[in-house]
């Protein structure tokens, strides 16, 4: 389950960002997870509860936004959002093979006490 090692990276980076702001606790954490990143959001949430214990993020609210990939049909050039593979073009039925984005995992904000 790679979500655990990914969650631990997330927590390390969020702790470092919070400490840089002089915060002693993090109330909330916002993530963007690519739909094609290979990370399952509910596994990540499960790991987060466990891995955040005894860190600045213990009890923090986790918000996850899924980012779809941007697919383009190489046959008819139709552009479409891709949330899983394989995906067929709605226009011509070809499989969509050119896909950009939707693979990253990012921390987009942390919320600390004023």
């Amino acid at each position: 389950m790679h979500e655990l090692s990914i969650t631990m990276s997330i927590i390390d980076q969020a702790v470092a960002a919070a400490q840089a702001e002089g915060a002693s606790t993090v109330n909330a954490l916002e993530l963007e997870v690519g739909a094609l990143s290979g990370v399952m959001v509910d596994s990540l949430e499960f790991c987060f509860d466990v891995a955040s214990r005894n860190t600045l993020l213990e009890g923090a609210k986790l918000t996850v936004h899924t980012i779809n990939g941007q697919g383009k049909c190489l046959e008819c050039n139709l552009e479409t959002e891709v949330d899983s593979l394989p995906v067929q073009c709605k226009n011509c039925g070809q499989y969509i093979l050119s896909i950009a984005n939707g693979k990253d995992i990012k921390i987009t904000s942390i919320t600390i006490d004023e």
Partner: protein
Amino acid sequence: MCDTCNCATRKQTAYHIPGKSIDLPENDRHHHQSEKDRVIQVELDVLSKNNHIAKHNREYFENNAILALNLVSSPGSGKTTTLEKTIASLGGTPLAVIEGDQQTSRDAERIDATGAPVIQVNTGTGCHLDADMIHKAMHQLDLQQNSILFIENVGNLVCPAMFDLGEAYKVAVISVTEGEDKPQKYPTMFHAADVCLINKIDLLPYVNFGVERCKEYARQVNNDLQFFEISATTGQGMEEWINWLKAKVITPTTPDIT
């Protein structure tokens, strides 16, 4: 649907019972901010540490003309046997092997018996190799210029897909005793792979595995995959694979990393 947490579009585990519709309770994880909160906008790439080390590994491989291959598959596809036969068939080409498994040094012992330099990485509970493990392991091997580094990843078609090790090519191994629909069941891996070895083809008369159907499923997620049909046991098809390796080690090139 909630504007704050985007819950309707989240990527979640899906549950299906054939012929039935099922209704599962949703997790309640809605975030409500308090007035005391201060939101800090950041843009932190969670895989940046791995990707940074992978880039460093890749530069090292390229500067030293080392063809690094990341072999991925489910357990039991025959990766280690394929490596043993590949090493024997490559003759004088200098090479080294990094073996990844959760436990034991059995695979490293098998490779060691071929005479090739090898190091075993035991990941413990970890389900994949990462770039830092490769960085540490490769500096324990006396890697030569114009050589091949085979990295046998932990047997797992899910997790290794997202960890770049700095390899030039990701090689997915599938055996005909597995389902031909594996590329559809594990699309992320086949999307990320550059080469696909279809192994154990000597067993095709005994199993219900359509090689062309398997390729078709794989091409639905990756039309650039290069296939080799082999049997590591009988040696069938190995020549083409060996020739491909020899051609690549003379002029190693890195495919586009997406």
